[in-house]
């Protein structure tokens, strides 16, 4: 790539790469130092104290101070590395508040990407440079893992769970994407490209691939087509919870516990409705797990996020 080539053996393509490469080379240096040190000492001893060579072979009785030294010193070094690593790890776990969310659904053996604007792609992910991107990921079948070496990011993608990772791409280009959790026959083919674009080029790409319907609008269409509105709508005859503005709200469950209606809660309420029953309602909701794909559920979540409490949301709203 550019500049200090040896320092970044891999493309230095995200804000994450430099601090990680610093830790990497520090660890390589530490390991090399210890390994070379021990090898040299072993070698010197093997020469100096080989059989038949005259040498001082008096053995000191007291070994405790030496033992304590080489117990304590490695321990302190390890704790230093631990703290250093932890600060980087903490950052990798907390996406900034202004991060843009893109949705990823993994299935044997492809990556399906849904942008909030409704754009969809398979085995490629277009992202703008310089903008923090948060990927919300789930799997349609087995466990997969999303790995982009150029960004130094990796996260397993689980069925019926949402996992996330985030990065800020810093350099335009195409970077390989791999699946790193063994997922069956074509595991080694389950790859693709992450395409980092300058913000304007990215905006143009979004326009060119505009489907006319945002993810939330796709969700609204599903909400009607799959019959959700039949029970959860304003004029429904069935006694079912009102879902307008549900996202982020506190929900009281029949077993007395309290949960926050986050992505996973909404997902499970659709796919595994018996898991958590809302207090005051009969457990009559059927499971949609055979009927909706994980991508559909993501669209429904996007739709529910767009609704406001009280007011009927614009069911007909499509992006103009």
């Amino acid at each position, binding site marked *: 790539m550019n500049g200090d080539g040896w320092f970044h053996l891999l493309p230095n393509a995200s804000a994450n790469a430099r601090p990680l490469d610093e830790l990497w080379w520090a660890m390589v240096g530490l390991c090399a130092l210890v390994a070379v040190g021990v090898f040299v000492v072993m070698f010197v001893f093997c020469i100096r104290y080989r059989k038949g060579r005259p040498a001082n072979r008096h053995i000191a009785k007291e070994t405790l101070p030496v033992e304590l030294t080489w117990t304590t010193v490695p321990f302190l070094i390890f704790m230093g590395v631990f703290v250093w690593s932890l600060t980087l*790890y903490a950052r990798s776990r907390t996406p900034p508040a202004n991060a843009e969310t893109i949705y990823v659904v993994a299935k044997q053996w492809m990556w399906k990407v849904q942008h909030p604007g409704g754009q969809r792609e398979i085995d490629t992910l277009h992202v703008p440079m310089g903008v923090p991107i948060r990927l919300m990921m789930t799997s349609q079948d087995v466990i997969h893992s999303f790995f982009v070496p150029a960004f130094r990011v990796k*996260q397993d993608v689980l069925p019926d769970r949402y996992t996330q990772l985030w990065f800020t791409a810093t350099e335009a280009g195409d970077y390989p994407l791999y699946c790193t959790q*063994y997922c*069956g026959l074509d595991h080694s083919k389950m790859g693709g490209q992450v395409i980092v674009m300058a913000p304007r080029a990215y905006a143009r790409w979004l326009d060119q691939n505009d489907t006319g319907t945002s993810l939330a609008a796709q969700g609204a269409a599903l909400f009607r087509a799959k019959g959700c509105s039949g029970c959860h709508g304003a004029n429904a005859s069935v006694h079912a919870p009102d879902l307008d503005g549900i996202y982020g709200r506190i929900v009281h469950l029949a077993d007395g516990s309290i949960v926050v209606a986050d992505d996973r809660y909404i997902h499970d309420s659709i796919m595994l409705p018996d898991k958590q029953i809302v207090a005051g309602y009969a457990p009559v909701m059927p499971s949609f797990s055979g009927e909706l794909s994980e991508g559909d559920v993501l669209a429904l979540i996007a739709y529910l996020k767009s609704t406001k409490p009280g007011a009927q949301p614009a069911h007909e709203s499509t992006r103009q």
Partner: protein
Amino acid sequence: MNATTLTPDLPELEPPRNFYTHKSGLLSWLLTTDHKRIAILYAITITLFFIMGGVAAAMIRINLVEPQGALLSAETYNKTFTFHGVVMVWFFLIPSIPATLGNFLLPIMIGARDLAFPRLNLASWYLFVIGGCFTIACLLLGGVDTGWTFYTPFSTMFSNTNVILVVVGVFVTGFSTILTGLNFIVTTHKLRMPGMSWFKLPLFVWAMYAVSVVMVLATPVLAMTLSLIGLERIAHVGIFDPALGGDPLLFQHMFWFYSHPAVYIMILPAMGVVSEIIPCFARRKIFGYKFMVYALVGIAVVGFLVWGHHMFVAGMSATATLVFSILSFIIAVPSAIKVFNWTATLRRGRISFEAPMLYALGFVGLFMLGGLTGLMLAAPALDIPLHATYFVIAHFHYVMVGGSVMAYLGGIHYWWPKITGRLYSEAWARFAAILMFFGFNMTFFPQYVLGYLGMPRRYHAYPPQFQTLNILSSAGASILAVAYLIPVIYLGWSLFRGARAGNNPWGARGLEWQTTSPPPKGNFLERPVVQKAYAYDEPAPGGEPATGATA
């Protein structure tokens, strides 16, 4: 102690008879309860399994010479690496040192006539053979494509291969491990001869004891986990599959709760072997004996608490990640102590470089490189890019092949004269040990680089930019294969033509060197003399060897 320990006079033994010639005929072997004969049975069995696992490894390396896969289809490749993993882990590495060298030496080293439960010992071998043959038959006829880790929900709901059958085979074999561990624990507690106190035990015995505790406590968890897989696959009870109401991460927790301690089942015995060889050829007592004991026990205990470091990117909570990370760094401390103490044992010694010593020194170097790269993987931030790449493959092969296999072969060479009564060609043995060291590094060092560059593991085909390093690795593997074949030839020759070894060809300390080679059926013709451990500053009870390989 009690009546089963040695009595000074053993009138029923005729001096020229050893445990081979005591009885003859196939049945006398298949029905034997002599720990030494059972050790030989194990050695033959695991050698066959090692060859099978090695052939699978060779097929993997040949396939990876070309980016699109040079030899196997994706389906066959997936079944081949599963075969390699299952066979090498459960049918070679876990039984390797304990079931062969441990079985043979543990009773002799503590001055006992046999293990505490000789018939149980034979039963363990039968369970092992039945489980092993059944598993391998299922792996060859149809195969399994899940990897040796059987991750759910792939293994329970998606794989159309013989998962259940192989799981049953591994389950059965697990009981062989549990029973061996139980046998060793009871033997160490109850059958030490008078005067053989805990801190006079050779470190090899301590290692066997520590590993037995791990075997007895960890293996049942594997049995439970495998049973739950069967229950989910057959009866659709929702345990791991979210679609049935299960938790997909639960399997990984349970699996690694067994499989991480299993790593220590593989490495603790290796540490024990090396702790015998280095003092012998440095002609001085081991440096920091008690620290070495505490380090073994410490590794065995903390080894149960670090399983989560296999799951840093699996979707575990940040708190769990933090705890498992710090514990993984802590367990590196006793390993570091051991490396430093082996090195310090060389200081002011009288070092000679027979083949066992070359293996032992090679072990220290390779184990250290495997351990140091383990530190990188213990740091969650670095584990994120490195996890599930060839970096991890290189790391654990340095520990398991560079460490355990080198130590196993070192131990085989060290105790060969005792076990067979004969010497082997020292020159060939040294050549093989050195060739193995270089072949090993050439095979696996490039894989560290491949992993850092992002090549994922378990890939049948890979992007072309990784080809050069893969070719280098495969070339190294062919050297390694030759280095493994050479000992088969000269050791085979030694069995029939080797010079008589005498009781103590290395001038070593320890009770096993005070008896005849090969030992008689009851292990000792005369009551052995208990010295402190590694008494290289005292004369050997049987006298130093007049001739032999050390000359």
